[in-house]
């Protein structure tokens, strides 16, 4: 049966027969890089059209419906437009930092792809500190936003960047704490171990109420971390024109735009891995027939299905809730999410010690 891991194994076998080990490793790394870039391009196209369709349907509109069947090629046309546009650098900008910032945003997104398991036994790098790695790398993304805002030499950009800094630094805490509750139950930081611990049921079903609380906290915190509405103060079209990327145009803007969507994909993939069992199929207790039917669906379909479900939830948030003020945003984090997730972590720890989960 053809699966991602099978194809990867075949490729590895063929490469190691043809070339020497060093060369094989280099070729495999290049292939992995190309695969990630391809995935990014595909995600950019798919998520943009998905966002526009979801927003249109929620607002009782039709959405893009001119380019291609049902407007499905709209994002392709937009990408072409962005590619041929002029990438301007403002006169008063810090040229080096201004041009570097979008690439840092993309590099962070690329690095975050490393520990994610896309299918059964298909992962770039199965490291034993996957969760720690993700929370460490994802906090670099604030650097690119601050860099863009500072280097633009524009007060709107700087204000957007500072807001984004305050926001990401505070929401990192509750995202980390809610992730920790799964780590406490699993007893491992490796994403692969976390997935395998959900073989007999996803954590969202096994973990009772505390896991639900940490799941909700996680979704709220990552929505804030990716700077999406209702926490899009960093962009805040009505107040700051476009926030930190006001001065960006052409391909440099496209990189920021792509990085936003790729980050949404990544946080949803992590959420799906931690709480919804990654590529694990859905099983119900001892219903053997049902479980076998579920096993028949490929693991990559399970993974992408769960991830896209979470992406839909985050888009649903964006088109439902109004934007928060900066004081409301910080109130929500420091007065509500953080104390709740701290108490929740204690509860989960108690549950793990006493073995109350299934």
């Amino acid at each position, binding site marked *: 049966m053809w699966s991602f891991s099978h194809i990867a194994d075949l490729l590895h076998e063929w490469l190691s027969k043809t070339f020497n080990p060093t060369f094989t490793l280099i070729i495999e790394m290049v292939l992995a890089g190309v695969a990630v870039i391809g995935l990014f391009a595909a995600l950019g196209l798919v998520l943009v059209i998905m966002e526009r369709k*979801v927003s*249109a*349907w*929620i*607002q*009782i*509109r*039709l959405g893009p419906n001119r380019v291609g069947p049902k407007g499905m090629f709209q994002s392709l046309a937009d990408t072409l437009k962005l590619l041929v546009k002029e990438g301007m650098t403002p006169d008063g900008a810090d040229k080096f930092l201004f041009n570097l910032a979008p690439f840092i945003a993309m590099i962070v997104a690329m690095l975050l792809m490393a520990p994610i398991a896309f299918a059964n036994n298909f992962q770039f790098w199965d490291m034993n500190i996957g969760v720690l790695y993700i929370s460490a790398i994802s906090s670099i993304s604030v650097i690119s936003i601050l860099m863009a805002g500072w280097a633009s030499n524009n007060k709107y950009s700087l204000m957007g960047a500072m807001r984004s800094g305050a926001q990401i630094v505070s929401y990192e805490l509750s995202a980390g704490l809610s992730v920790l509750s799964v780590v406490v139950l699993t007893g491992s930081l490796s994403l692969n171990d976390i997935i395998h611990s959900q073989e007999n049921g996803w954590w969202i079903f096994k973990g009772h109420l505390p896991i639900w609380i940490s799941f909700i906290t996680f979704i709220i915190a990552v929505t804030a971390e990716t700077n999406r509405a209702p926490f899009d103060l960093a962009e805040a079209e009505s107040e700051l024109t476009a926030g930190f990327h006001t001065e960006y145009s052409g391909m440099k803007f496209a990189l920021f735009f792509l990085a936003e969507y790729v980050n949404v994909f990544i946080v949803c993939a992590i959420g799906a891995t931690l709480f919804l069992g990654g590529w694990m199929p859905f099983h119900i207790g001892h219903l053997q027939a049902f479980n076998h039917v579920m096993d028949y669906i490929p693991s990559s379909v399970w993974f992408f299905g769960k991830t896209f479900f979470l992406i839909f939830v985050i888009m*649903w*948030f964006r*088109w*439902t*809730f109004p934007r928060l003020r900066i004081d409301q945003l910080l109130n929500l984090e420091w007065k*509500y999410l953080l104390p*709740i997730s701290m108490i929740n972590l204690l509860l989960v720890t108690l549950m793990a010690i006493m073995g109350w989960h299934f």
Partner: protein
Amino acid sequence: MSIGKYIKDVFSGLWSLVVGLKRTLYYFTHHKEIITEQYPETKPVLPERFKGEVVMPHDEKNEHRCTGCTACELACPNGTIKVITKFDITPEGKKKKAIDKLVYRLELCTMCNLCIEACPSDAIKMAQTFEHSVYDRSQLNKVLNNPGSKIMDGVE
């Protein structure tokens, strides 16, 4: 803040979010009712007083009601209308002022309706057309009276 109020705040906040999400999920799943007008396919229903451009109505004998009094030109706040007058010879041999051309520059017009209100003989009115895009801006300078038209009898 008491702990009871804190917990109540959290739950009422969450509940209000759920109410909003339920509403938008309803719209998402019932997307067949569309509130936007599908413009090029179905023409929009315009209100009666929609102001698209200034036109001068002519009757079937190619006659208009404009006396060339330039009240519209004076009323226009941004010089959109230019009335070019000439002198006609009436059958009795008298000279009579009439319009040669009434030039209307659509690109300057703000549709403020002041010219129509200033006109003493109701010679011009606002039309409901709105698809004004052209490939050359010179096409936006329009002459409102038809070629060869003359003033209607009885309009002074």
